[in-house]
């Protein structure tokens, strides 16, 4: 119920913004107009949404996996950290247009290159947060483990990792929120479908309302993914008290 009220409130705010700022529809169409397009073109939008949704989910899954693996690797080995951490940081500075040909070269025009691009955007918050979390273990626990002759591996997997799960959850939330843009960016790499593709195309051809209808669907997908991730992330850390809502 409440999310619905919020959503309606936000739409009202959008309509008001268009009104007050007297924005022409080719800059920002009012939601009423977008709604009409949403209805009229629902088949097209749904089809594209399925495509982009798949990219988002795959990208997120891959990003979470890759991110978690890298973070654990960095926490485990100073050697890896020294070589790969700068690479990981630098990877965030690379725009699609620079690597798109490379991705196509290696992964072809199919979904793989798009998902790879999306994962590249998505994995970073996970690595960074989780690695940060892995470095902040309560020293008392580490000392306890040391007196128990635990191998570094056991300490990492059984103490540092569970202790860092709140940090992972935090990273996963960010990752879920950037998953849509990851997928859209992925669609720059030679896509012929997807909401991002549809948006670019309709914007370039003056069909702003359709572009915003696509954007609206993308935002819905994004919100749904975020809420789902948030729920799962909380379930991951049942022992931790969370304040507010």
């Amino acid at each position, binding site marked *: 119920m409440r999310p619905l009220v919020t959503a309606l409130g936000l739409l009202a705010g959008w309509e008001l913004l268009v009104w007050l700022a007297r924005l022409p529809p080719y800059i920002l169409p009012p939601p009423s107009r977008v709604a009409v397009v949403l209805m009229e073109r629902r088949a097209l939008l749904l089809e594209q949404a399925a495509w982009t949704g798949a990219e988002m989910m795959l990208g997120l899954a891959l990003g979470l996996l890759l991110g978690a693996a890298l973070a654990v690797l960095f926490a485990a080995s100073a050697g890896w950290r020294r070589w790969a951490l700068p690479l990981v940081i630098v990877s965030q500075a690379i725009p699609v247009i620079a690597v798109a040909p490379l991705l196509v070269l290696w992964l072809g025009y199919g979904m793989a290159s798009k998902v790879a691009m999306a994962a590249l955007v998505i994995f970073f918050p996970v690595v960074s947060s989780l690695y940060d979390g892995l470095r902040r273990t*309560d020293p*008392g*626990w580490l*000392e*306890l*483990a*040391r*007196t*128990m*002759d*635990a*191998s570094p591996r*056991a*300490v990492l997997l*059984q*103490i540092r990792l*569970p*202790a860092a*799960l709140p940090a992972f959850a935090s990273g996963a939330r960010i990752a879920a929120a950037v998953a849509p843009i990851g997928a859209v960016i992925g669609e720059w790499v030679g896509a012929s479908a997807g909401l991002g593709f549809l948006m670019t195309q309709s914007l370039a051809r003056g069909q702003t309302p359709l572009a915003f209808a696509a954007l609206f669907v993308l935002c819905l997908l994004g919100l749904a993914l975020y809420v789902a991730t948030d729920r799962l992330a909380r379930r991951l850390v049942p*022992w*931790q008290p969370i304040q507010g809502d």
Partner: protein
Amino acid sequence: MVSSPALSVRSAHIVLDGHVVAENLSLEFPGGRTTCLLGRSGVGKTSLLRHLAGLLPGTAPAGPVAYMAQRDLLLPWLSVLDNVRLGHRLRGDAAARHAAGPRARALLAEVGLGHHLDALPQTLSGGMRQRAALARTLCEDRQIVLMDEPFGHLDAVTRFDLQDLAARLLRGRTVVMVTHDPLEALRLGHEIRILSGTPFVPGPVIAPSGAVPRDPADPELLALQARLIGELRTGG
């Protein structure tokens, strides 16, 4: 049974972030016996125990130790039972871990947590958490056991019972136990050492007669208690 090794500290310096806790410290803890450490708050008891456990930079433990810290350090994501079996889980030997199960259950029953095996630590009271930590330490089954105020959060009766339990289970092991209760030291310690001063120096060995756990109503103990408190006061 393996005879438990003696512990010795030879010309050690204990310095924490520039704060000199002990200088040129030499100290012996006889093998197979329990030594209780007394001393004013902040004198360096915990630091000495950490030194023995090999937890301070540049130190290594004399052998496998079980260390019970001042905080209970229970892992919030593990049940009480799994917390008690933590050592076996961490060492990852599947057989040992399996074998540790009954042992951990028995210990938890003895410390009065037999009905809280699956509880998460957050749902326990302070004293219950301390008992779980005690069970974890005893479950380690080590020849050297270092304990920092192990009974501090327990009521008089539970404390008494668990002192008995610890004395029974730790018989023949080398135990160093920090406590604030002179009577507890007198009940459990083959030897008692009072640390005093900054940097601290250990006082002479005080060795009450009789087997541990001793009867706290014993007049000799009560007399010794007065002496310990006096030494604590003057030394501090």
